[in-house]
């Protein structure tokens, strides 16, 4: 019989991998390398010529108080929202583990924030936090939980809190699904053994279920941290980095300096700045996940 193309695994393999490979190289790899190169240049928008600038861009941003503020904000927002996400996702997973009427509908609703485009969601949230029409404020007032008025996006502290809330809201459904999957992978026997051994709800949660969930939670946190630390949309739409640059995070600042301010070199430096930290963090989390997994077997 004649050898057809389908028999030639070497050719077929290359042919099938090519589109994915092209996508990654052209749309991820090239811009990534370009960003790193740009961060060491004095390139600006509107001009094609640029020169090697060494570490000058990095030196400039490290001495810049707005950059330091943005770095601090990125850390606060990322850590704050992820702590919130872990607590909420663990609690929600407990709820969704039970069987109740309308569970499928509830799960669909739960997943909605994940499915909604970031920009649409952020616009909706600007109304919730609006200085005059804030649904949140009206509700708090109507239930007598608050006197006076909160200017959510006008006060630097409250604005950061608002950003944390939105970021947590966005990531939490995804984390819940991951934790749910993790819960169902815990051997039922082990959970029952802890019940017979006399453990109550909290002991079971903190000493049996959560430790066994560790690898899964580590992956969820890794995703959450990367998504939050590199997100531009939420802050850009909610506060635009304001008031007076107090809620800038690295992606918004990079966008402002690099694209709006036309200083491509400095923008790239700001954007690339987090990369080494995220790489180290990802390596740590993946190692934790693997170690815990090996331990469980």
């Amino acid at each position, binding site marked *: 019989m004649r050898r057809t193309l389908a028999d030639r695994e070497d050719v077929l393999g290359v042919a099938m991998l090519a589109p994915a490979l092209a996508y990654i190289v052209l749309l991820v790899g090239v811009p990534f390398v370009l960003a790193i190169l740009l961060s060491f240049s004095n390139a600006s928008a509107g001009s094609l010529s640029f020169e090697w600038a060494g570490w000058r861009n990095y030196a400039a941003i490290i001495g810049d108080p707005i950059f330091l503020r943005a770095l601090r904000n990125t850390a606060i927002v990322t850590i704050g929202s992820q702590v919130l996400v872990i607590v909420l996702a663990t609690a929600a997973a407990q709820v969704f583990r039970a069987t109740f009427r309308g569970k499928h509908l509830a799960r669909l609703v739960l997943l909605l924030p994940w499915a909604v485009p970031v920009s649409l969601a952020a616009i909706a949230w600007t109304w919730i936090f609006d200085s005059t029409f804030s649904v949140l404020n009206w509700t708090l007032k109507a239930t007598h939980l608050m006197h006076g008025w909160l200017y959510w996006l006008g006060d630097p502290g409250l604005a950061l809190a608002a950003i944390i809330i939105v970021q947590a809201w966005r990531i939490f459904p995804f984390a819940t699904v991951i934790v749910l999957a993790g819960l169902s992978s815990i051997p039922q026997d082990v959970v029952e053994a802890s019940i*017979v*051994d006399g453990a109550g709800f909290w002991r079971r949660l903190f000493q049996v279920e959560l430790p066994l969930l560790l690898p899964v939670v580590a992956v969820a946190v890794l995703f959450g941290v990367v998504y939050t630390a590199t997100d531009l949309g939420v802050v850009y739409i909610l506060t635009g980095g304001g008031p007076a640059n107090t809620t800038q995070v690295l992606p918004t600042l990079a966008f402002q300096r690099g694209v709006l301010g036309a200083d491509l070199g400095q923008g790239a430096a700001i954007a690339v700045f987090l990369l080494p930290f995220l790489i180290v963090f990802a390596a740590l989390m993946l190692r934790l996940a693997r170690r*815990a997994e090996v331990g469980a077997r």
Partner: protein
Amino acid sequence: MDGVDLSIREGELVVLLGPSGCGKTTLLRMIAGLERPTSGEIFIGGERIDADVPPRARGIAMVFQSYALYPHRTVAQNIAFPLEASGMPRSQIAEKVRWAADMFGITPYLARYPRQLSGGERQRVALCRALVRDPKVFLLDEPLANLDAKLRNMARDELKRFQRQVKRTTVYVTHDQVEAMGLGDRIAVMDRGKVRQVGTPEQVYEDPVDTFVATFLGQPPMNLLELPGALLGFRPEHFLPAAYYGAREGLRSFPLAVRRVEYLGSDRYVYGNAAGAGATVIAKLPATIAMEIAEGTEMEFAVPERTLCYFDAATGARQRR
């Protein structure tokens, strides 16, 4: 699960024996409080526990088939877990763990994780974790099923010695009749949610109440021959060449058309058809009977009358004659 009426004496080891799906594990889980009976009552030590008494307040300890050790805790932490849950002071816990570990010979492994142990060692850790709470009742769910055959005999012996030593009431679930016969003070034979018979190993083996118990126990199972209006049962090991019994009183003998002889080392199984009855019967000859048996021939076989059992042909219930 229906019409289960079982009372277990203090310090006794009762085996729940039956095929998979017969409800033996469900019954055990109801005693443990992991499942709720829809109706009926369960008592432990005179105290009714079926309704709202949670597992931890029942004074029970359970060993799972998979051992269900906590994979993220060391052996010592595994054993300490039920004690911590009961709020015992730390110094006392350490002492108790050491005592229990000594008893099972697992002291050298205290700092290891379950994954670093062999199957037999894990099983002992699971038993140790159960013992350390000082329960009123031990519930064991197929604790030997995950051990390889060689280890299982030793573990069975160890288990029995240990149970005698602590003299604790034990409910033991298994589908393995050898385990049941070897370990049980009494055996409850179960089928389709019902307890068919409760009795000592001798009682259930030699005096079965129905054809289910008769054919579930024994390897190979009891032969059943159709008689007019009844079933005649006899054990393969009692069904021997008539020449072996010699001219003795009280023998029931009939010719057997030998179809096949299986040589199994310690035994020979002879498959054949009893004259007048279509059914296949099996004879189990110990290696000590060296008599030659040729396939395709007819031979006179006999059973002692006192070992015969009669069953109702329709219901399978035992008939006393």
